[in-house]
């Protein structure tokens, strides 16, 4: 059974004030102690079009968006027409009297008499918060904070409008069943996947972020740009994605842990740079927020269509690690891990999300900021008395590291022995280009040896459910929440179900994954793409052929309902 949660959809045209209304309401809900999952659906335009913001709230922890609506807040007629069919029994529509839609079941608010045109969305916050029964003081405080930051000159009018909306709603019977009061939230953050990646990168000691704007990755860059100066970080908008990754590689080569946020099209342009990072053994972290392709595809929707591309992008053979967080919290933690691994092994690492997770707000406990081992610290193993070898052959494949212009003690270099030579050509240990084919073989082997070390640092898969299940759902990345809740429901239906989620998709520990697959009677791969790329990866690595897939590629996020329906158990009497 679904938990006792509510789905609110706020819909309208871009430019109508949807963001203000959604942000204040969501933050107030989080501050009140509810858990949330937000899905945003918008069109690739600045004004007009139909945009919607769907907020699921629950007094208990939730992990996935749900279908069906309890409250529709309609900023225009189109929202009423499009979303009324999704209303559950007893669901309600809140709309402006001026929209002139006559329906006795709707809550028709006379915004014009409550406030002036400019502040109607503050009034709407009052109305909806009243329906939900949110503590008025929490709502007013949240709105005051918001307006103090975004519209300090009109805070007073906005708050007055909010209270007017709230008062109008008081005493009106809606027949609406309110949620139970949650436990207090204790400083939970209202944060989405992209913001968590930005904070994760900053906490890992990132010093340079180079980007070219591309939906849905842009808000990673925006978040970092907002805080760059006070964090002592350089955030630079490059002229194109090719520049962005090369700039990040140059910055990393000289001592800045570097991040490059992008989406599929931009990542395509970065492929040669990725290969350069592999060859020059320069750490770089790429945050790849996927959207449906090929080509421009659906710029503002979601998909997990770039897995095989991320695994193979870049010519030639070189080690890499690819992470795929399954939650906002993992976005933070795995971004740190991506920096750590990139630095430890001097390789490119990729952190893959998608539009759903990138834009998905949730209520997260504050992240732990305990200090990592200092990243990019100068390497005490380097001797100042002998010429430095950038690519010294070692048992692990990882060579001691020096930054140009600095000594091993991280002070300004003082000896001509401390020269760092890096080359995109095959190179000698010193770093100079070579066509000595025996050196070539030694260098390939050296780089490949990093794979052994990488395998010792793999993030364990998450396994949840019966240990020898009749049905095992397999998933990666952002679909974890939907699979988790679907699995719960399947078990409530009496099925021995479990799921396994991989938040690191390369390298994978093929033996342990094969063991998990072997124990299941039937396996279904759940992915937001049309060709079951992850199932193919698992077959290649473990030899297991997964026969059944639940695939979603209509641009919308995976939901528990979608999974249950496709599995075909929705109506089966188990």
């Amino acid at each position, binding site marked *: 059974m679904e938990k006792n949660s509510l789905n609110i959809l706020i819909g309208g045209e871009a430019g109508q004030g949807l963001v203000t209304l959604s942000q204040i309401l969501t933050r107030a809900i989080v501050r009140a102690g509810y858990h949330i999952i937000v899905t945003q659906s918008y069109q690739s335009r600045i004004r007009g079009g139909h945009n919607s913001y769907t907020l699921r709230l629950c007094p208990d922890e939730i992990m996935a968006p749900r279908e069906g609506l309890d409250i529709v807040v309609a900023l225009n007629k189109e929202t009423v027409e499009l979303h009324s069919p999704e209303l559950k029994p007893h669901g309600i529509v809140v709309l402006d009297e001026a929209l002139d839609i006559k329906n006795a079941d709707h809550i028709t608010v006379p915004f014009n008499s409550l406030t002036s045109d400019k502040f109607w969305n503050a009034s709407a916050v009052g109305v909806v918060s009243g329906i939900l029964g949110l503590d008025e003081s929490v709502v007013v405080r949240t709105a005051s904070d918001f307006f103090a930051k975004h519209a300090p000159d009109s805070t007073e009018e906005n708050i007055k409008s909010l209270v007017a909306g709230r008062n109008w709603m008081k005493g009106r019977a809606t027949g609406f069943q309110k949620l139970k009061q949650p436990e207090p939230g204790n400083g939970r953050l209202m944060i989405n996947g992209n913001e968590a990646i930005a904070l994760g990168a900053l906490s890992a000691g990132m010093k340079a972020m180079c980007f070219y704007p591309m939906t849905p990755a842009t808000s990673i860059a925006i978040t970092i740009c907002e805080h760059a100066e*006070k964090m002592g970080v350089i955030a630079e908008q490059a*002229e194109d994605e090719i520049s962005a990754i090369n700039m990040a590689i140059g910055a990393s080569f000289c*001592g800045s842990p570097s991040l490059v946020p992008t989406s599929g099209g931009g990542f395509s342009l970065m492929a040669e740079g990725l290969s350069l990072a592999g060859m020059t053994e320069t750490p770089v972290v790429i945050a790849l927020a996927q959207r449906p392709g090929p080509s421009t595809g659906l710029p503002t929707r979601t998909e997990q269509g770039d897995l095989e591309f991320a695994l193979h992008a870049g010519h030639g053979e070189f080690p890499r690690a690819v992470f795929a967080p399954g939650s906002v919290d993992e976005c933070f933690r795995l971004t740190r891990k991506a920096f750590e691994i990139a630095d430890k092994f001097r390789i490119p690492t990729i952190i893959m999300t998608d539009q759903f997770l990138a834009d998905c707000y949730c209520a997260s406990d504050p992240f732990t900021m305990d200090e990592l081992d200092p990243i990019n610290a100068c390497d005490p193993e380097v001797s100042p008395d002998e010429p430095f070898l950038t690519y010294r052959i070692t048992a692990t494949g990882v060579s001691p590291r020096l930054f140009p212009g600095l000594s091993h003690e991280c002070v300004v270099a003082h000896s001509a022995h401390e020269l760092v030579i890096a080359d995109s050509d095959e190179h000698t240990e010193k770093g100079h280009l070579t066509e000595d084919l025996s050196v070539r073989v030694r260098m390939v082997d050296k780089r490949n040896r990093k794979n052994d070390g990488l395998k010792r640092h793999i993030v364990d898969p998450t396994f949840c459910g019966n240990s020898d299940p009749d049905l095992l759902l397999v998933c990666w990345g952002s679909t974890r929440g939907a699979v988790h809740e679907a699995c719960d429901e399947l078990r409530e239906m009496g099925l021995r179900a479990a799921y396994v989620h991989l938040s690191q998709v390369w390298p994978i520990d093929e033996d342990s994954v094969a063991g998990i697959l072997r124990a299941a009677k039937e396996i279904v791969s759940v992915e937001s793409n049309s060709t079951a790329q992850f199932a193919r990866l698992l077959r290649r690595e473990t030899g297991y052929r997964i026969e059944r897939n639940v695939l979603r590629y209509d641009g919308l996020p995976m939901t528990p309902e979608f999974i249950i329906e496709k599995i075909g158990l929705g109506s089966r009497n188990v």
Partner: protein
Amino acid sequence: MYELGDYGDYITAWCPGCGNHNILKAVKDALFKLQLPPHRALFVSGIGQAAKAPHYINANVFNGLHGRSLPVATGARISNPELTVIVESGDGCHYGEGGNHFLAAIRRNVDITIIVHDNQVYGLTKGQASPTSSEGFITKTQPQGTHNARFNPVQVAVAMKAGFVARGFSGRVEHLSGLIQQGIKHRGLALIDVLQPCVSFNKVNTYGWYNQRCYILSEGYDPTDRNQAMLVSEEWGDRIPLGVIYKNDRPAFEDHFPVMKLGPAAMRPARLDTLKEIMESFS
């Protein structure tokens, strides 16, 4: 005190008579005259015959991808504003494959010195037309002669108000060394386009061709006069001007970032206390 020999003495892979030899000589001479410690300099290059030059100099080196030296150099400056960053590559690398980066670097005005080995032909791939080839230049891949208009990097840089724009010739080593020294000392981006014969694949723009045409701008020439610089940078054909053609004192890219005054990024700890405050703003 550094000797000239401290900047390296390597056997090169270049053809005998190639203009690259003299450019290399001028670069080392400039480093020596400036007494720049080899370990405080970073040479960044792309791909091409010219891009091999940093391998023949004692300094830090990043020999990256074709056309992408400027973004790497920009990243290097972001990380370590105390490094002297010199970019060395050919006309194909800078004006062809890396054209967008060339325009962007000029706009940023990063404090780097770009030395372009401009031989008007692709040497490494054995003789195709480059962006600076003259119209009608015949090659195996342009058998009817290239139809594309010649790219004039010097005039483009002047038009974009680049911080420092100069042209040298590999046949005049001492003059070229002087330009490189000025370029390194200039705060902001310095472009030095160096005319250079390719003895194997360019039978048009030879030593004789350049020697007949190149002249050094007179001492009275004022490189801060942009209108005049536009006219001088237009000059090509019978007479080709050499020298500092244009300069200004636009602030360098680095001057806009307070954190860069604090030294190399690797020496600065992450500001976790500030980050905790930022995180709290999400609650």
